């Protein structure tokens, strides 16, 4: 119990210091917010112009796709806030020997290595997808309940944890291949998650994209939960994918640590 308390305290301290750091660079904070707004503008223009020529994609209209995109952004900003700031330096720690220092801490080394700082710009950028959701809701009626909203929040957190663990697994390959950029592969190629999973046709493709590289699962499950259009077997699948990545990431991390030799002075 005491061990869990220490880890929670550690995470709260990181939250506090990350906020102080963010507020020290206020101009950067505003520019970062504007950057994400422009990213969203680009995605909306893409949808608007493409759907200006056709009416639907896989049976989903413009407002559905805006809602799906917004859900994808909530997931992306959660990942950018909690996961990316640490994982983007993960390879460096291993290659430059910074991991030595983290391994000596009386905390779980996987947690301290992959959750070292948080980025608040992304959290504030969350206002943008919420504005997009509001836009969709005010233009089209959806059947939404309190239960679906709660389940939406739950599934999106699960999706973020799956992404974090998947990226940890990929980043851990640095122990064996120091000069590759495999860490970041999943998130770097995940724009496709923002589209309806019907775009993946064929049993083999579906199997791959619903489980091993779960592009079809991550954003689509929370989105469909929210509008009450989910095949609920996918919820169970999401849970199994989570368990799978918990196990895989721990195994690879442990194997990597055995291989790690340290490089610092």
């Amino acid at each position, binding site marked *: 119990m005491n061990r869990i308390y220490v880890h929670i305290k550690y995470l709260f301290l990181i939250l506090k210091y990350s906020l102080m750091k963010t507020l020290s660079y206020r101009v950067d904070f505003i520019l970062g917010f504007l950057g994400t707004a422009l990213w969203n503008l680009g995605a909306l223009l893409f949808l608007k112009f493409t759907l200006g020529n056709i009416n639907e*994609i896989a049976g989903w209209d413009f407002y559905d796709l805006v809602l799906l995109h917004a859900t994808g952004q909530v997931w992306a900003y959660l990942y950018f806030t909690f996961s990316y700031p640490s994982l983007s330096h993960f390879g460096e720690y291993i290659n430059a020997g910074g991991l030595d220092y983290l391994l000596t801490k009386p905390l779980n080394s996987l947690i301290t290595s992959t959750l070292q700082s948080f980025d608040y710009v992304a959290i504030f950028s969350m206002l943008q997808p919420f504005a997009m959701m509001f836009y969709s809701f005010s233009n089209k009626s959806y059947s939404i309940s309190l239960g679906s909203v709660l389940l939406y929040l739950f599934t999106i957190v699960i999706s973020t944890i799956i992404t974090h663990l998947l990226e940890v697994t990929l980043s851990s390959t640095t122990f064996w291949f120091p000069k590759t950029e495999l860490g970041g592969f999943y998130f770097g190629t995940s*724009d496709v998650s923002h589209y309806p999973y019907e775009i993946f*046709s064929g049993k083999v493709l579906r199997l791959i994209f619903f489980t091993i590289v779960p592009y079809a699962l991550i954003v689509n499950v929370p989105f469909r939960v929210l509008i009450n259009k989910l095949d609920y077997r996918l919820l169970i699948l999401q849970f199994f994918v989570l368990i799978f990545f918990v196990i895989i990431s721990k195994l690879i991390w442990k194997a990597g640590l055995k291989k790690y030799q340290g490089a610092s002075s």
Partner: protein
Amino acid sequence: MRLVKNSNMKKAFTIFKNSVLEKLEYRGEIISGVIISLAGLLLQLFLWNKIMLENGEVSGYDYNKIVVYYLMVSAWESVNLAGRKLAKSFMRDVNSGGFSSILMKPIKPQVFYISTALGFQFVRSIIEFTLFGLPILININWRNVLDLSFANISLLSLYVIFITLFSLAFYSCVAYIIFWLESGNGFRNIVSQILRIVKGNLFPLDIAPIWFQSILRNLPFMYMGFYPAKILLGDVTFIDGVKGLVILFIYTIIFSLFAKLLFRSGIKIYDSVGN
């Protein structure tokens, strides 16, 4: 006078050569980075496949044409890498105080950054054009969409030079803004997000409404990615291709003059603490 010029050229070439060698050392990293971009791009094609299956074509693009468009527009990104690299390195050095050591070198700092960035672009362009071009070469349906006439190839060779020069001038302006900022990442991100839209990386610009296209036609950015890709698809006449080059040239001069002005004012307020 001529001797000094020759010596400067020699220094610039040596820096360029060193930059090429340095990048070649990290070729594994570059290749894996490009493969990630390529994988992301190919995954997007699932969406287009679905759209084309349901609609046949969109604004004159069938599936093969849209695939080649996206591959080519992504490959042409590497032609403006020199500018992006220049902005990134310059902003980082001014921020960290490392710019002071560049100022002490027996070469103009602008020439130093441009030579380094060109070396970087040289290596990346070869790798990116090879990796993005490979799927087109392998797939005959995609290859057949290309229009590789002599006129188009000549035009595109000129586009490589004009885009490189424009991107160096444009990103120099972006870089020198750092004299007035506390960090460059946010500003650079804003610029790259805007360019992603107006260069045609997100969607072919001719699927957009006419008003949107009219605005972009008088700006230089669509000629950096969208136009070269359309030339390769055989959708741009030779005369229009030349017009694009003229627009790039005019904006290169405007941004070069502006960059000069920014550097002169910026260097006056630059201070650093270092050893």
